[in-house]
Structure formats: C-alpha cells, structure tokens
C-alpha cells in the first residue's frame, strides 16, 4: 500500500546564510574544534594494564557463589538461574540435603555440582536477578583468561573461591535482587549500600507495595 501523502513528514533542510554557503568559515570553525582537542589534550582512555580501570558499580563480571554465615554454599539448587539463563551456560545437579547432618538441617536441597561455562556466558546478569536467595552474583573480575576451554568451566569450588576472593574488597558487596530480600536471605534487613540494589524512584518496582522495598 502506498504511503498517504498526508502521512509524510517533509523535513526541509534549513536555508544557509552567506557564511554557511561559502563553506570555508564552517571548515575553519571545525578545524578550530578539532585543533582544540589536540592542544587541550585530555584523554579519556585509561592506560589499562598500568592503571586499573575505573569500573562502574554495576559492572557484571565473573560469577560467584555466595556462602552463608556457616560457610555453606547459599545456593538451594532451585534451578531458577539455569532457567533464566538465555545462554544456557549454567548446569546444576541438585542433591537432597542430608537431614541427619546438623549442618544441613535447615535446607532441603543443595547443589551437588554447579558449573558455569564462562565462555558461553553473555554476562547479562539474569541469573543474579533470578536467584531467590542471592546465592549467585556477578563480581568485578573481568580479566578472565585460560589456556583451555575446560578450565573456563567454573565449578562450585571455583565459584565459591571467587566469593572468598571478592567478598571483602568493597567492590562486590552481597547484593539483593531488585531491592527485595529473598526468602532465604540471611540479612535481617536490606543493606543500604550498593548501586545494584538501588531502585530509581521512577522505576515501577519502587512503587510496589511489597514490604522490604528500599525507597
């Protein structure tokens, strides 16, 4: 179907004045602008290996598996992260918690194995959003290298060790998702820090009536 002539927006180019029509003043003006950048040189590039780069607070790097106060893995093997993952890089094998062990008396399940393929992962943060117990979180570690694909498959121990490395560095506080405390969270109340937990006042979730929302 042809477009109706009434629906066409005709945007006219603005008429040029004399100086614009001769082009040269505009060229000189542009040269002054580019020249100013050369003479007043203030680079925004960071000299990466020498200078640690200044990452934003919500940077999404390598995952970690949080521990609770008892040092156990916080994950309850609910598979929500694996379900949410668009890249399907999370592989969890759940195991029933040993009921006779006093350490596990408050848990139904725990992950027998928890493997994230860091090469498949697209670092979108959906797993972090999906996790009901704040067990999986993303850290500021970005310089991830390995010699083989095999060693880029991060298993439970590795992910827990990432937590041990990063929990005290200040950049990666234990977060919550969308400003709500998860049901199995070991916080009594929400920590007041961490931009990832902040909800902008114009966000829909900020106006939700659910208790535990940070205002």
């Amino acid at each position, binding site marked *: 179907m042809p477009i109706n002539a009434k629906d*066409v927006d005709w945007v*006219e*180019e603005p008429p040029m004045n004399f100086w614009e*029509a001769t082009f040269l003043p505009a060229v000189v003006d542009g*040269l002054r602008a*580019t020249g100013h*950048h050369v003479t007043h040189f*203030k680079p925004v590039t960071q000299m990466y290996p020498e200078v640690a780069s200044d990452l934003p607070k919500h940077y999404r790097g390598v995952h970690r598996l949080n521990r609770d106060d008892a040092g156990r893995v916080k994950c309850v093997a609910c598979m929500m992260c694996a379900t949410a993952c668009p890249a399907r890089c999370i592989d969890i094998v759940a195991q029933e918690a040993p009921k006779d062990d006093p350490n596990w008396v408050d848990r139904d399940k725990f992950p027998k194995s928890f493997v994230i393929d860091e090469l498949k992962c697209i670092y979108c943060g959906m797993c972090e959003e999906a996790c009901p117990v704040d067990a999986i979180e993303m850290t500021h570690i970005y310089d991830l290298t390995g010699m083989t694909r095999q060693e880029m498959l991060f298993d439970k121990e590795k992910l827990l060790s990432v937590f041990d490395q990063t929990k005290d560095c200040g950049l990666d506080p234990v977060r919550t998702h969308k400003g709500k405390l998860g049901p199995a969270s070991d916080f009594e109340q929400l920590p007041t820090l961490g931009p990832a937990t902040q909800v902008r006042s114009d966000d829909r979730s900020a106006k939700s009536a659910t208790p535990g929302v940070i205002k």
Partner: protein
Amino acid sequence: MFEQVFQWILKWLPEAVHPYVMPMLVIAIVLQVNLGVCSYLILLERKLSAWMQDRHGPNRVGPMGLFQPVADMLKLLLKEDVIPGHVNKFLFVLAPGISVFTTFLAFAVVPFGPVPDGLTPGDGKFPFIIAPGIDLGIVFIFAIGSLAVYGIILGGWASNNKYSALGCLRASAQVVSYEIPLGMSVVGLAMLNSTMSIEKILLNQANQGLIGWNIWYQPLACIIFFIAAMAEAQRLPFDLAECEQELIGGWHTEYSAMKWGLFFLAEYTHVITISFLTSILFFGGWHFPLIAEADSAYAGATAVKVFVLLSKVFAVIIVIQMLRWTIPRFRFDQLMSLAWMGLIPLATINVVLVMFVKQFELNTLWLFPLSIATFVIAGLMATQSSRPFARRGPAAVEPAAHGGHAHAH
C-alpha cells in the same frame, strides 16, 4: 664536499653510465625517504586522530609509540597474503603496483629543495629533483595522476566483489570529475608565470620575495586546487571510494597484507605530492622572508631552504590530516555538484580574470580582490540556491503538507 665525493665516485665508473649516476642516486634517496616518511605519516595520522578524539593513540611500541611503523610494516609483510579464489588474479596483483608506480612517478618533477641553475648530468650538483628541466611539470603530474585511478578501478573490478565494484565506480566518476578543476586551477598560475615548469614557478615567486607568493594572486585557485587534489587523492572528506561505513573499504575490500599496504603507501605518497605542490605553487616553495631569500648565499642556505620547504609541506600535511576528522564525508551527489557546479565554474572565472588582468596589463595584485569578490559572489549565489528544495523544485509536494514542519528540525 658532496661534489668532490661524487666526482671521486664517478672516476670508478665507466664513462657511459655517468649521466645516469646522479638520477639513480636521487631516485634511491627519494624512494627511501618517502617510504620512511610515509610510514611515519601513518603514525602521525593515527596519533592526530587519537588526540582529536581524546585518546592516546598507538603508544606501546617503543617510546611514545615511535616504533609503531616498524611493527606495522612487519605485520604487513608477515601477514598471510590472501588472494581470493574468485578474483582475476593478474589484475588483482597488478592493481596495487599501478597505484604505487603512478604516485611515485608523479613525484619525479616535484622539486624538494632549491634546484641549482644550469644543471648538467654528471656535474655533481645535487639537483633536488628527480627530473630537472621538465618544461611541463604540472601537466606531467596531472597526466600521471589521471593514470592513478587505474589502480583503483582494476583493483575494484578484479576483486569481483560488489563493495569493490561500487567503490571503483565511485572512484572513477570522482577522479574524472575532479581532474577538471584541478587542471583549471593551475591554468591561471601558468599564465601569470608564463610557464608550466614547477621549478620556474617556484623561482618566480622566490625572486619577488614575500609579495611574489602566488597565494596573493590566486587565492581562489589555491582553494580549488587544494580541494580537487584532496579529492584526487581520495582523502577524507572525499573518500567515497573506500568509505568504511558503507563499502567495507571499497576497492581494497579483498586486499590483505602488503598488497593492501601498497595501496596505503600510494595514498600517503599522493598526500605528500599534493602537499609539496600546494606549498610550491602557492606558498613560495623554499622561499621565506629574511632567512631563505633567492639571493641568500650564507653557509648552509641550501639546508635552510630545504628545511623551510619541508616545514611548509609538513604544515599542509597536518591540515589535510586534521580535515579528516573535521569535515564529514560528502554524499555522492554533493560531491559531484561541488565539482561541476562549484569548482569548475569558479576555476573558469578565475582563468578569465587572469586573462583580463594580463590583457589590459593591470597590476597583477588586482587579482587578489577580484578573486575574493568572485568567491563572495559565488557564496551569495549559493545562499540563493540552498533554499529548501520543496520551494525550489517542481510542485511535486503540496505546500500544506510540509508547512507545519518547517521548524521541525
């Protein structure tokens, strides 16, 4: 000193080759210096681009990144040289060669220092030009420059790739169009100086001092020449033939390794040549008031003159490289209308003005206000013609449809 060494070398050579020794020496020097300068111009361009965009630019290889050209060259030489299966192999290999050959050949008539008088082959004076005494230097450069487009056309066609084909079609139309204003802009110079030899035009300016610089007589021609030469060299903002955003690289899409490097070498040699031409034809060449006059004969005057010329050339190169990030690329119809509706009429009027002044034997300085007036009038006419096209063109659009959007932008 140089002459004695040269004569001593000649003694060891057979008589028959004596006339060829000095040209060969100059060619060798020019080639080597040019290769080095080109690679460092690429570094300079990368650095300048970076500074203009608030980046650091290449700074890892050597101090301040000064060895980056070496690394680049090594990379180009050691990279896999891919010749795709669907190309016309002969022309594919030939094309970068033509590009480099023509641009180097054009440099043969460009003086890069004070050319001594009365040169004879084998007298041991360093000529500062590969081919001294060519009567039609400028025409020669244009002739060779018009051949340079073959490198692009053949490379693009032989690549058998739609981006390359589009690039080389654009290039051929562009080069053929911009040859006309390029040639016309120097016709005025040739008439004023009664010669087409680049050396003689330079000497004419130097003999008259600062007031003899052609920029005072031909400011309009200088602008036209500079614009057209940039278009001939396919430099931004006229690089529609390679145009990374639309054409992936245009005619050199399929090229890799040193063949690609040769195209780049050709482009930078072209930039050097047009910078030399601009500074020699319009800005007095090696002449500079007080320190490098035509009759200055103090020790080291030659070196100072070479230095002055190279400084001017360097300044022009800097301007060319700054323009790269200053002006956005033209659209193709704008490119064509700039040549055919802007530069060619202006160049023609400029030639007519020179004829007028020469015929009525006015003071040639009249050409300065006349050129400026021409430019101003052209600007006023452009103001008229740049009215919104809906009002200017045929009544295809009813005025009511766009009346309300006149200030939408």
